[in-house]
């Protein structure tokens, strides 16, 4: 299972956008070229140690050459530990599929909603929005892309086919992915590694858009300003960011222009905390939330539950109401979602 | 539903840790029989271990063992607070063990009387039949069959509350009728482990319901509500639910009642069937409502359930009912409940304690609010 990566594209690149646009590293064109070529050749580069695994270069690369996946592969090859070893190892064990997970697989019909590994959101999808859509979740369908943050490409590869096999066993032809990361796995990762996905996948935003469009009569426009936290895995499907704009438009949410959104989105900081990089975590969280606060938005909107956990309290203290995209849509159709993970 | 839980697979899993003795905040003993007796035999852990000992012939059945088993009012506080995964089955274990004892003819004296009367007369006291003749509204294809339940049919205090309910139904124009020859629905029989008797009662009732075309049942008795809902599988409404709908829809135009109100959750309405909101919404609408420290899932049982209103294993000066009314008196002036058994137990306890506390059924306070 090899990454579709063409070094020549890097050698011939005239932008080095992967590094020059990076949110975390400061490379000018010249030094970026030097490090990029090392990476293309598969040599050691200090970028491998400096990389904050924000996924952004996957989006920045004009040629779709998968610079980020390449970096992660090399990080692993050169034995770079981004996180403390016990943390990385424990995480690998934590999300490994167990017998009981496999036993939970049932035929659910041709369409389903994947809630990934977020059981706390079970009640949040009990909504008209998702009516008639059976929910599947658990380690057995987990995409494992989280290990991109832990220099561990091999565990993702190892588990990838099985994950797809397991989903097939549910009998679905179409899978709606609640989380960007799952969608990215099927549509970016699988393609980059030549893995066949024998069912159709739909991004949550596309699903929401279609539902809302069909049920426009049920919508009461919210007329609010929202600050959006674009998560790392949305970099794997940048086209869906446009769809989100359309969703917001339908429900009357104005996505405020702010510094750290769209191409300039920054991390929620959760991964840095896991790595033990507390100062960096603090720095990105602080500037992100300050940016949200001064934007005049009423809601801080998340799609990634992990971003939500990392930033909800902080955004609330800054005077914003933290909420998931789907819950914001629920507000617009008169439902009252409860806080994720609360009884 | 009448499948007995296989308690031989469960009883040894109890650690006797005692979480089940408490409410969520550990402030008081919340297991009614343990609160009264205080011996380690009289809480769910003790019962689990004793059932196991009896099953393994380490102890023999005795009147005392029977009393320990039947002093459990099946209030489900233990189910709510047990930390183990078998928590949901705790009360089912006690019911199944009682049933095995019953099958072998092993029942304490008062429980035996209870069963005999129920079998012969259709009520625990052996009173005469035609218990609802005085209502004078025999069921004739009405929207609801009003099922009073044994206590509301015979106990003088509970009867008054039933009359209040009938008055409210009339004001609101609810279409109902009763069986003047109503018989017990058998909730206590099944909870006390007399499955045979229960099935007999259920069959009789079902037959009557079918013959007389009953579709929906309305009852002020949470015990009956439980049996109809969970064992008969009938469409049943408790009067708190109906009254809230009538008030909320404006069918009953209510004012305010004087005095601080508090509410005692009947176990068979609350912990057994999850009805907590409607009575609270009603009381908040018609007066100043205050919660007792132990409420909803942490409510403290009156000690009347599972036939204890008759057998009286939880009576006496340390009775749960007497503890409960003291708690209520510290909270409010009017203690409202929505169960004839609770009403009878708590009303008696107030007299015994000599407290200045008014005990009322929710229909009585709604009626007062209607007239104010």
């Amino acid at each position, binding site marked *: 299972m090899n990454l579709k990566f063409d070094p020549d594209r890097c050698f011939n690149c005239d932008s080095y956008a992967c590094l020059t646009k990076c949110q975390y590293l400061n490379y000018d064109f010249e030094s970026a070229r030097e490090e990029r070529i090392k990476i293309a050749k598969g040599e050691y580069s200090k970028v491998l140690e400096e990389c904050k695994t924000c996924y952004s270069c996957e989006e920045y690369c004009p040629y779709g050459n998968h610079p980020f996946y390449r970096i992660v592969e090399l990080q692993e090859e050169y034995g770079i*530990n981004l*996180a*403390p*070893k*016990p*943390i990385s*190892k*424990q*995480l690998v*064990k*934590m999300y*490994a599929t*167990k017998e009981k997970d496999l036993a939970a697989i049932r035929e659910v019909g041709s369409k389903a909603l994947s809630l990934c590994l977020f059981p*706390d959101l079970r009640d949040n999808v009990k909504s008209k929005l998702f009516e008639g859509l059976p929910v599947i979740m658990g380690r057995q369908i987990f995409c494992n892309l989280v290990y991109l943050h832990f220099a561990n490409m091999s565990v993702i590869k190892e588990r990838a086919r099985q994950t797809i096999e397991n989903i097939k066993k549910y009998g679905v032809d179409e899978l709606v992915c609640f989380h960007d990361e799952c969608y990215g796995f099927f549509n970016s990762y699988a393609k980059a590694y030549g893995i066949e996905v024998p069912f159709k996948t739909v991004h949550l935003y596309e699903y929401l858009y279609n539902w809302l469009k069909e049920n426009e009569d049920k919508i009461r426009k919210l007329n609010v300003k929202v600050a959006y936290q674009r998560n790392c895995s949305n970099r794997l499907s940048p086209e869906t960011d446009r769809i989100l704009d359309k969703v917001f438009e339908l429900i009357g949410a104005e996505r405020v222009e702010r510094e750290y959104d769209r191409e300039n989105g920054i991390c929620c900081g*959760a991964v840095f*905390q*896991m*790595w*033990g990089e*507390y100062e960096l975590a603090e720095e990105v969280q602080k500037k992100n939330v300050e940016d949200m606060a001064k934007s005049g938005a009423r809601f801080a909107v998340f799609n990634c539950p992990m971003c939500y*956990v990392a930033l909800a309290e902080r955004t609330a203290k800054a005077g914003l109401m933290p909420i998931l995209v789907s819950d914001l849509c629920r507000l617009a159709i008169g439902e009252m979602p409860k806080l994720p*993970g609360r009884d | 539903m009448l499948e007995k839980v296989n308690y031989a697979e469960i009883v*040894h*899993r*109890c*650690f*006797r*840790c*005692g*979480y089940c*003795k*408490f409410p969520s*905040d*550990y*402030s*008081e003993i919340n297991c009614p029989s343990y609160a009264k*007796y*205080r*011996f*380690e*035999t009289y809480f769910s852990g*003790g019962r689990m*271990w*004793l059932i196991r*000992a009896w099953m393994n012939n*380490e*102890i*023999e059945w*005795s009147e*005392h*063992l029977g009393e*320990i088993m039947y002093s459990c009012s099946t209030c489900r506080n233990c189910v709510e607070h047990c*930390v*183990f*995964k078998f928590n949901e089955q705790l009360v089912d274990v006690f019911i199944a063990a009682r049933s095995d004892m019953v099958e072998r003819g092993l029942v304490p004296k008062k429980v035996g009387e209870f069963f005999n009367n129920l079998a012969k007369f259709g009520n625990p006291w052996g009173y005469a039949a035609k218990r609802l003749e005085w209502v004078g509204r025999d069921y004739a294809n009405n929207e609801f069959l009003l099922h009073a339940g044994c206590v509301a049919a015979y106990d003088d205090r509970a009867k008054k509350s039933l009359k209040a309910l009938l008055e409210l139904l009339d004001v609101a124009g609810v279409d109902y009728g009763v069986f003047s020859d109503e018989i017990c629905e058998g909730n206590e029989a099944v909870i006390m482990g007399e499955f045979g008797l229960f099935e007999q009662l259920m069959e009789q009732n079902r037959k009557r319901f079918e013959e007389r075309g009953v579709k929906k049942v309305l009852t002020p008795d949470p015990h009956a509500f439980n049996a109809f809902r969970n064992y008969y599988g009938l469409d049943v409404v408790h009067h708190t639910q109906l009254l809230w709908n009538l008030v909320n829809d404006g069918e009953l135009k209510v004012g305010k009642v004087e005095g601080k109100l508090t509410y005692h959750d009947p176990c068979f309405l609350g912990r057994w069937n999850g009805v907590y909101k409607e009575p609270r919404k009603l009381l908040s609408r018609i007066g100043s409502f205050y919660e007792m420290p132990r409420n909803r899932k942490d409510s403290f049982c009156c000690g009347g359930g599972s036939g204890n209103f008759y057998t009286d294993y939880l009576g*006496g000066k340390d009775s749960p009912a007497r503890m409960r009314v003291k708690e209520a008196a510290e909270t409010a002036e009017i203690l409202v409940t929505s169960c004839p058994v609770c009403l009878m137990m708590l009303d008696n306890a107030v007299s015994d304690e000599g407290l200045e506390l008014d005990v009322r059924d929710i229909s009585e306070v709604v009626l007062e609010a209607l007239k104010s």
Partner: protein
Amino acid sequence: MYEELKAIVGEEFVSKEPEELYIYSSDPGTMPPVKPDYVVMPKTTEEVQKIVLLANKHKVPVVPMGGALSLSGLVRPLRGGIVVDMKRMDRIIEVNEKARYAVIEAGVSEGRLKAYLDKKYPSLRISTPDAPPIATVTANALIHGSGRLSQIYGFHSEMITGMEVVLPTGEICRVGSCSVSPYWFSRSPLPDLAGLFIGWFGRTGIVTKLGIKLFPKHRYRDVMIFVTENPSYVSDVIWRVAHTEMAEDITVWAQPRPEWAEGFQHTTIYVTADSEEELEFKKKIIRNALMDYIKQKEGGFLYLTPGMKAMFLQEPMSQLVRFADVRRGGGFEYVGAILPVDLFDVAYQKGLEIVERLGIDWAFSIRIIGRSHCMMFAYAYPFNRADEEDVERARKALHETNKAVLEMGGIPWKAEAPAQQLILESMDEGAKRLIKSVIEMLDPNGVMNPGNWEVK
């Protein structure tokens, strides 16, 4: 005698029925049952006194009982007699808010005192042990329990400020400041008679009232879990965290289930504060104290979801009891080894060696007592009560662990009768003679919980 007991406590609070005798013959641990002749539940000190006098008159043993949750069978009447269940003596007599102590009757449960303080004195707290909430404050303190504040203030026995005791001969006596003054503030500056009753498992008298220290309760609490994969790091991790004096409680857990936990040591650190700034500051100091490990990638903090945090912040942690269901058989028992923290690695390895050799389920759960002055290292073994072989396997593991603990220089806490004998075997002769003399002096008729601390 039954009639006499009835006359003392009232008919409803004495039993000689097989049901009560059965239940009071054992606790949830592995020790074989021993039946009492009577169970009584007194309401007052005077009733306790009368019971003890009666026991002397008939030369019948009398055994005090709290929550019966030691798991090491400490409340079994080893020589039969009267079990005195203290839980009806449940009055909270006094809380002195400014001097931060409470005076309670011996049957007051941990849960009840906690709830009482939460409601009436929200700025005060007790050092809650992780026993179920029905455990009594008094018995827990008397057996040298430990809890949420032990890392700062030591064993719960060190938090005792005074007591009222019914001596084995029936006299009532007070020890601590309350023997001189109306205040129960301290055991100092008097001859410390409390030591005659602490750690004796009821062999020297029945404590009927207790003065216990209360501590400031802070508005904010948080929990951090530091993970390592090398047990030899743990004592240093603890030492460093304790050094900061920023942590309230430090515990360590290691267990093979869930699978992700196996092979790792989890140092759980609780932090409390009165403001968010203070909380953040303390957490930062603690993280910095461990930064060497983090930088070298040898240890890091587990990312805790809100659900996990809530579970760890619960007091007591109800999750712990669920260990009894690991083998779906309602039982576990542990050797609580009191050891210097420095011996963590030795203790850990020895434990692994025992569980691997015996093929038994396990969990190690450690609480730091004092600023790493020592630790309570619990080797916990679950068993299926319905499977005698399984129970026997746990018994064997417990016995071997007791021996190993003594060999490595530790002492089993709340030791069951056979383990008490193991301890006595290792004990200094002078100390043993003193124990014997104290017992003979206080209990000439040998009626107070005989069979415990029996010097042969």
